[in-house]
């Protein structure tokens, strides 16, 4: 596996993007967008996290095996959160049976 050393310019671009996204997320939090406040904040956080994983942690050039492990980690985390949310959101959707 032979890789070139990543240029400072690439890292600087990612760095500036991360700072810009931080400003954006703080600015958006001052606006009242209702439900979209949360959606925007989390979308920006996911983008920032992905940038750090891909560039700073260099996963984009890591071996397939490493990518699989990284993906499995975040996938399991997603299972945890999605199943918790589906449970709490769907409570009370069905009428309580008479024998309860």
């Amino acid at each position, binding site marked *: *596996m*032979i*890789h*070139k*050393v*990543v*240029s*400072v*310019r690439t*890292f*600087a671009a990612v*760095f500036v993007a*991360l*700072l810009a996204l*931080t400003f954006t*997320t*703080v600015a958006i*939090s*001052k*606006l*009242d*967008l209702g439900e979209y*406040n*949360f959606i925007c*904040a*989390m979308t*920006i*956080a996911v983008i*920032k*996290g992905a940038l*750090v*994983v891909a*560039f*700073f*942690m260099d996963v984009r050039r*890591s*071996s397939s*095996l*490493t990518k699989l*492990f*990284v993906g*499995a*980690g*975040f996938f*399991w*985390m997603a299972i*945890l*959160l999605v199943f*918790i*949310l589906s449970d*709490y*959101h769907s409570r009370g959707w069905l009428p309580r049976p008479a024998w309860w």
Partner: protein
Amino acid sequence: MGDIDATLHPTSAAHPAGVRQDLKHHFDDAAQQMESSTLGMWVFLVTEIMFFGGMFGGYTVYRNMYPEAFASTSHFMNVTIGAINTGVLICSSFTMVLAVRAAQLGQKKAIIAFLILTLILGCVFLGLKGVEYHEKWVEHHIPGPGFQYADARYFHQAQILFFLYFAMTGMHAMHMIVGAGLLTALIVMAARNRFSEHWYTPVEMIGLYWHFVDIVWIFLFPLLYLIGHTS
């Protein structure tokens, strides 16, 4: 500055005999050894994802149960310090990645300089965190017998959020303190000339750890400071 024509994870064939690359006998070559280290480090980081995942899961449950109470606590979070700390951590990740890059190029002085910068930024983060914790102490926002909350309706529910706040930021700060210790060890190793462009695995692995801790904060900041800021 364009890509520099140096190879990463060099194979043993690329080096003349006698060049030190700390190749253990059970690996075929330096590339395989590096690959194993990276994979091993990621396995550890996956356990860390699970570890923090439990706390994020707890936060998800209680935020769904008490959305108004959780939103009301955002007014008592110091967004300015939180945002500055986010910036500080991003800067420290940038200097860390430059330290790894310097290691890959064998620039020994630059490694030390960037690692020291990273360590300083990490300490700035912890210092600001301390200022915030002190604010919480003064405002009686530390959960327990002395807890006070402006909105009596949310007294118990807001306390849950502050429990989560201290558990999550506290565990994150703990990881920062460990990271600072690891950085100090790296600086000592670099000063003793342990690293070269042929072997710099610890710099790269601790870099991964440092970036991971940064990612945790990237998610903590909006969840604890920004949610419900407008309501």
